[in-house]
């Protein structure tokens, strides 16, 4: 993975830069010691590491503004960091950058149930946003699987999703406003407690811009009343095609489950060995969850059952109580852990049109056989967001390279059938060099214009999202 060579002028100015940062931040908020900056050398994409020049951990918007103004003046690249759970390398440092971590900005600033929003500092974790309102019957809908650890700042940067997007949408659909600090230190309020933009939808383009347009310090988030209840069913099939058809038929019938999760045989077998959830021995299984009152759930599940039975499932398993519901989810929720037990793995994130599901799964199986690496599939079937897990052995020479090659081929396949490279993890550095597969040069150029406007000197997270060759002239300017 190529990263730009660090700017030697910045490296040699480190003492001056750190001294200036110390003047505007409390003593414990500036980290420059090599042993300590090492803790920030990578995010959850651990294959790539590089300690930063320094790390700052501000507590307020004013402190963030002061830091950015200094870095702007000194020409120092800044890499914003939420909780460092990015699977795409979104928070990977360069040696000449300052990591701006929002981990100490965790306050709830305002909770308003009448208007159904919460305003928080952006370092607050996703799950603790729900934690702040759930005793009053509300929740924050986007639920990435890292929700215990991941920060709202990172969710906004990556426009994170989760398992319940089919009904509730992703971060951008649940974000009402942000306080954004621009690279030159300017603080802007964009959006707020009202529902839509008066002018251009800047909030819409800030969300998902991977920390390249500004640093979000505060966010106004839509909160929703908790449903009365939820219940899953598990359906096993003897082919991926039939499982895919069943998903399509359920959607066409007008039922809108909150989640439809899909696991294929390699994934079922691995999780079964690990979690012993008692899943059926079959080619594909669906976990379908619906919400509402007990009677509403019964009605929706009855309809789903009628549809599923038409496809001759190997098994249709209902949950009679909370314990059985938990067992249905157990295998799915431990899928990633199970994979980690048996192998190193790379988790992909491409999205495909739901109708291409059987074809894509068949092709992935063929490609997996050709290259000699196993692939297990677990994904959000309702919205076509796939998570193929490529299993490899990091200690075996050449395995990582073959894994990366297969990953790239699978993502190309996703684009070929009308999908995209990443559905919820973001581009970061991981998919940066594949952007040309999905976008023509003019399409990319239009995106670069947005960064030109928000960050004319290209100092914010500059080596991410776009192929380095495409951004070279801008970064050098």
């Amino acid at each position, binding site marked *: 993975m190529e990263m730009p060579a660090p700017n030697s002028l910045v490296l040699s100015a480190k003492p001056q830069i750190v001294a200036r940062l110390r003047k505007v931040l409390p003593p414990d908020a500036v980290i420059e010691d090599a042993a300590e900056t090492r803790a920030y050398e990578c995010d959850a994409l651990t294959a790539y590491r590089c300690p930063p020049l320094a790390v700052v951990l501000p507590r307020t918007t004013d402190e963030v503004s002061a830091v950015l103004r200094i870095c702007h003046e000194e020409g120092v690249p800044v890499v914003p960091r939420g909780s460092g759970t990015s699977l795409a390398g979104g928070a990977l440092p360069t040696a000449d950058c300052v990591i701006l971590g929002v981990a100490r900005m965790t306050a709830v600033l305002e909770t308003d149930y*009448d*208007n*159904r929003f919460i305003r928080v500092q952006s370092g607050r974790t996703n799950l603790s946003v729900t934690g702040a309102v759930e005793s009053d019957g*509300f929740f924050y809908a986007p639920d990435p699987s890292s929700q215990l650890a991941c920060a709202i700042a990172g969710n906004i940067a*990556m*426009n994170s*999703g989760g398992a319940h*997007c089919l009904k509730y*949408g*992703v971060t*951008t659909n649940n974000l009402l406003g942000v306080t954004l600090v*621009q690279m030159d230190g*300017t603080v*802007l*309020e964009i959006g707020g407690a*009202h*529902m*839509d933009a*008066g*002018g*251009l*939808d*800047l*909030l*819409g383009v800030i*969300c*998902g*811009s991977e920390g390249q347009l500004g640093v979000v310090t505060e966010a106004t988030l839509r909160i929703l*009343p908790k449903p*009365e209840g939820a219940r899953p069913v598990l359906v096993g099939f003897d082919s991926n095609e039939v499982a895919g058809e069943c998903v399509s038929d359920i*959607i*066409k019938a*007008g039922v*809108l489950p909150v989640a439809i999760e899909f696991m294929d045989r390699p994934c079922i077998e691995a999780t079964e060995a690990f979690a012993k959830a008692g899943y059926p021995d079959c080619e594909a299984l669906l976990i379908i969850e619906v919400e509402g*009152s007990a*009677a*509403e759930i019964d*009605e929706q599940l009855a309809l789903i059952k009628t549809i599923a039975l038409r496809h001759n499932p190997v098994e249709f398993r209902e949950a009679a109580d909370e314990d059985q519901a938990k067992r249905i989810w157990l295998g799915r929720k431990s899928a990633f852990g199970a994979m980690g037990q048996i192998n190193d793995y790379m988790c992909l994130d491409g999205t*495909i*049109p739901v109708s291409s599901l059987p074809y894509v799964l068949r092709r992935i199986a063929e490609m997996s056989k050709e290259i000699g690496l196993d692939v297990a599939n677990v994904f959000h079937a309702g919205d*076509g*967001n796939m998570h193929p897990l490529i299993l490899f052995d990091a200690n075996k020479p050449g395995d990582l390279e073959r894994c990366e090659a297969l990953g790239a081929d699978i993502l190309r396949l996703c684009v070929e059938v*009308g*999908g*995209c*490279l*990443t*559905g919820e*993890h973001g*581009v970061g550095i991981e998919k940066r060099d594949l*952007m040309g597969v*999905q*976008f023509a040069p003019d*399409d990319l150029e*239009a*995106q670069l*214009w947005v*960064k030109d*406007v928000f960050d004319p000197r290209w100092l914010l997270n500059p080596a991410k*999202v776009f192929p380095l060759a495409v951004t070279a002239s801008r970064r050098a300017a």
Partner: protein
Amino acid sequence: MAKPLSFPEDIFEQEMGQGMRPETEAELAEIIRVANGPFVVRGGGTRSVGACEGAVLETGGLSGVVLYEPGALTLVAGAGTPLAQVEAQLAAEGQRLPFEVPDMRGLLGCSGESTLGGVVAANASGPRRVQAGACRDSLIGVRFVDGAGTVIKNGGRVMKNVTGYDLVKLMAGSWGTLGVLSEVSFKLLPVPETGATLILRGLSDAQAVQAMASALGSPFEVNGAAHWPGEGTFLRIEGFAASVAYRAAQLRRHLAAFGALEIEEGTARWAGIRDVTPFHGRNGDVWRISVKPSDAPGLVARMRADAVLYDWGGGLIWALAEPGTDLRAALGAFEGHATRVRGAGPGAFQPESPGVAALTRGLRAKFDPRGILNSGLMGA
């Protein structure tokens, strides 16, 4: 190397007269590329706000559904495709656009055929916005031609996509100032089996907004909440029949403090709320004000409009005012924005804060460097 395009003789001659109506995206791009004057970009011309000058550039020729997959809840269509045609095609499969597109013709006193591109350019969203989101939330892909005549695509036809910057959102509600849409893609939803309208009578505006907040904050999935002063406070629920009946009963109990809840079968009444029929045929300027819902009654008291209609639980105020009234002056500083959707003179769009205005200007200068697309609209 792009092939030189040949146009029907009359395409450029139209510039002098009625306007231009390209039949393909390539024609659209070429027209903009070689243009030497400003354009007024128009879909069906049924939801125009504010005024700008130039040759009319119509997208009606870019019509047709490119792809409709009911099993994937996805539609891709040319920007000039008539809304009515798409709605009929979706209805035949028991599906719909989630955001309930308003028909503005009665309010604006115009005729014509609303197009999908126009809907997107206006981010036009009706009562269901409170639950299903706005047009921008269902829009998953765009193709457009920028002010230099370059074709640009963003997003696609899948509902989860974080590949690169989200220019899809940026194009929604940009009123043709960043580019001329040629193709749009939407996520769809199934049409529920049935619906009901719940009505409270005799509430003050403040009580009504409280009642709507209470309903929207309940788990009973209210997807419409409007208040028409003097007429009633209306809530909508939709779904399977048994579920609708159950939730209606629960809401009656939940809202008991606000009075007796009438339950009306069906949801026919909501087209009138969506299209602001109470203002049809009445003189005056029409304003659309987006606010924090609980601020709405206080703002309404300040603005002294001739009539108002609250939608989105109070988050959207439609106001009818004396022609030429600067409603913003009466409102003072508030969190939100006011747009004059009907009425003469400058200032239809809410002025932006200096920092935000600078970003807007910067983006327009990049996407439309010659300033030829709806120049003067949206305060720039």
